[in-house]
């Protein structure tokens, strides 16, 4: 069955080609069927491959040699193991639901743009599948670049709005910065080990000096920073909200931002061997988790809140990777894929009902108009806040417990972030669904529940958000109930063998667990109470509030430190170097030839006397040169012989 794994990326690629080329002739319903159907087919094959891996174990399928030069062979091979099949299931499963949802969400688009949208979406899924399936870093890099490209295309999908184009460009440039780090790391690996294939790299890792391995992992981490939106390269993700809402769901849940987590989880042995980089990963992750959470508290755009929440949750995943809880990080990727896709699709449903109004201050009371969206959104909020027994509780708890075992400071800061998460999610929930409606009468008149193509994915994702965490029930509750850990154990085996183990007392663990849950519940009740009866106020916020509303002025800082100087340099090149040096040289050559020709034309006077004079002078010159040449050669010979 694993032999059929090439079908998984092939279906979306076909969907991309058909929808992309036929977007002007196919009908919208056909485009929707092709777009979603290919992903569904991939999902079915992924399921089969998943059960095959479970039964028969790991395999590597080589299709052909991608690069083959002396001493370096990079095969186009697919790695089918526990980690990649998990990601395959998330990407194709959640991806399919998002495609299905998009058929309803995007139905107002013209057929041509509808086709373009689904073509991009399929290409996105294809790139991500390639990324997780590749059996070496080079194939991963192809997918890595592919998702970067597709995010650019989809964020700038409504290309008539220039701000959206800027957001798309920002995403692309930020990603490129990270990609450079990734690329350098791959070159470094190939230079030192002569291979980029995972199995070879991981078995030869002992040959690397500690400097090499630290540098390689740090460079890889820079790649992950760009792709997974960590400090300092996170600012593209909130701006990526410019794209259609299902695209945000796809970027945030199923594809793209999980690439960095996947890459580090895949290279876990490298990171375990480089404790320095690992602490860096943990600290950057933790900083991002808290930093983004503080910004999310003050945002008023429904999608912006969710975007910063994604950045924050990704921070938790990196914290997990940094403290060696690789299973926990992957676990959080899975649960996060469920509830964040649900949140975005729910937000999309709200935006759809509100006729593209995204400001939560102008919503409220949607509970009675949109019951399904309301219930599913509430479940997702509970999941992300970490209320047992919803999925987010188990995964976040696993990461935080690992952080506690490593360093209590990580735990307390992480818990602080988790409390903020609970606060801003329930602030969002209350402002959107509770209280009275604060929009215009016309909007209220049009409020309606979304069509079933949109609610069915919501319901499926809601069920997954509730039960998704049950694959990873901690030891504390039941012995050997953490089936995910057992499933992934072969991937992280060499890392767990090296890493030193910290174990907490069971009673201690219970204490932290109950304490943190109680705190979260208190915060949730506080948030609901403060925003339930929210009335729009005109007074300006003060102090820290202003800073948070402006996202700590990070964009302004980047503009001042990097963007504006670069623009100035570019302006100098455009206005001076381009205009005077390059154009000057090119035009100067032309002008010189023209001038020379005009001067030479004077010789052609038609006066025979002049010709004669020139002829005589030329003969005299030639004769002089000739004789001097001979004497020069003569003296040179004398000199050297």
């Amino acid at each position, binding site marked *: 069955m694993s032999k059929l794994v090439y079908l998984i990326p092939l279906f979306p690629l076909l969907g991309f080609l058909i929808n992309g080329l036929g977007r002007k002739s196919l009908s919208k319903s056909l485009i929707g069927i092709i777009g979603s159907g290919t992903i569904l087919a991939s999902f079915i094959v992924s399921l089969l491959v998943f059960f095959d891996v479970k039964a028969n174990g790991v395999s590597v399928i080589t299709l052909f040699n991608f690069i083959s030069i002396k001493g370096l062979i990079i095969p186009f091979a697919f790695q089918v193991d526990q980690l990649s099949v998990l990601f395959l299931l998330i990407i194709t499963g959640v991806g399919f639901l998002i495609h299905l949802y998009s058929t309803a969400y995007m139905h107002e688009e013209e057929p041509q743009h509808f086709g373009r949208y689904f073509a991009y979406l399929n290409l996105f899924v294809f790139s991500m599948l390639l990324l997780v399936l590749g059996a070496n870093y080079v194939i991963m890099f192809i997918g890595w670049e592919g998702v970067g490209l597709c995010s650019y295309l989809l964020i700038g999908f409504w290309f008539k709005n220039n701000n959206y184009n800027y957001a798309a460009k920002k995403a692309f440039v930020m990603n490129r910065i990270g990609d450079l780090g990734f690329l350098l790391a791959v070159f470094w690996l190939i230079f030192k080990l002569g291979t980029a294939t995972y199995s070879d790299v991981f078995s030869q890792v002992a040959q690397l000096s500690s400097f090499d391995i630290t540098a390689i992992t740090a460079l890889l981490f820079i790649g992950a920073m760009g792709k997974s939106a960590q400090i300092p390269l996170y600012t593209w993700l909130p701006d990526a909200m410019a794209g259609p809402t299902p695209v945000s769901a796809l970027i945030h849940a199923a594809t793209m931002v999980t690439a960095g987590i996947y890459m580090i989880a895949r290279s876990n042995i490298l990171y375990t061997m480089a404790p320095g980089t690992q602490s860096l990963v943990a600290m950057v992750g933790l900083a991002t988790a808290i930093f983004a959470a503080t910004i999310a508290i003050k945002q008023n755009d429904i999608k912006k809140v969710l975007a910063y929440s994604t950045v924050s949750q990704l921070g938790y995943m990196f914290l997990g990777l940094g403290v060696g809880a690789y299973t926990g990080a992957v676990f959080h990727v899975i649960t996060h894929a469920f509830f964040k896709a649900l949140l975005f699709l729910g937000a999309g449903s709200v935006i759809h009902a509100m006729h593209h109004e995204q400001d939560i201050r102008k919503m409220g009371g949607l509970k009675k108009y949109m019951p399904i969206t309301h219930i599913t959104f509430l479940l997702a909020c509970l999941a992300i806040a970490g209320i047992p027994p919803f999925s987010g509780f188990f995964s976040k708890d696993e990461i935080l417990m690992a952080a506690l075992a490593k360093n209590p400071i990580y735990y307390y800061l992480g818990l602080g972030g988790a409390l903020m998460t609970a606060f801003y999610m329930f602030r969002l929930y209350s402002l959107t669904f509770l209280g009275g409606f604060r929009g215009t009468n016309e909007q209220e008149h049009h409020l309606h529940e979304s069509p079933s193509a949109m609610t069915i994915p919501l319901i499926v994702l809601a069920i997954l958000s509730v039960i998704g965490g049950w694959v990873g029930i901690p030891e504390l509750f039941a012995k050997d109930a953490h089936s995910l850990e057992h499933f992934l154990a072969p991937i992280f085996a060499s890392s767990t063998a090296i890493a030193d183990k910290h174990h907490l007392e069971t009673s201690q663990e219970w204490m932290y667990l109950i304490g943190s849950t109680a705190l979260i519940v208190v915060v949730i009740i506080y948030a609901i109470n403060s925003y339930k009866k929210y009335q729009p106020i005109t007074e300006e916020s003060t102090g820290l509030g202003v800073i948070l509303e402006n996202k700590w002025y990070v964009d302004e800082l980047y503009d001042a430190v990097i963007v504006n100087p670069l623009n100035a340099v570019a302006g100098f090149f455009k206005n001076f170097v381009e205009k005077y040096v390059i154009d000057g040289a090119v035009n100067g050559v032309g002008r010189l030839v023209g001038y020379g020709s005009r001067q030479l034309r004077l010789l052609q*006077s*038609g*006066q*025979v*006397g002049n010709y*004669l*004079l020139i002829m*005589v002078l030329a003969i005299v010159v030639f004769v002089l040169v000739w004789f001097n040449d001979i004497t020069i050669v003569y003296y040179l010979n004398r000199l050297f012989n």
Partner: protein
Amino acid sequence: MPIQYYIYLCLALFSIGIIGALTRRNVIIVFMCIELMFNAVNLLLVAFSKMHLAAASISDKASTVGSDGQLFVFFIMVVAAAEVSVGLAIIVMLFRNTHSVDINFLNRLKN
């Protein structure tokens, strides 16, 4: 007679030819100056030919060294004769058309 005398004479003749060709405007005089230069060169060829033959004859009475120089003189004379006939024909045509033999009128060939 030393070869230097021939060389000085040829140099003088050639210089007269060049200066005449450069400074005079009458086509016929320019033409004559060109002939003068030809003949300066011819004279030089013959002089060197004789010099080489004389030098070779001291050791070998039957030597023919330098005779190719005299051969070239004949060639040049033949070619010069042909050239003179063409040149004079051009001058005649020039005179018919412009009623002048001024060399500067030759630029009228342009049109």
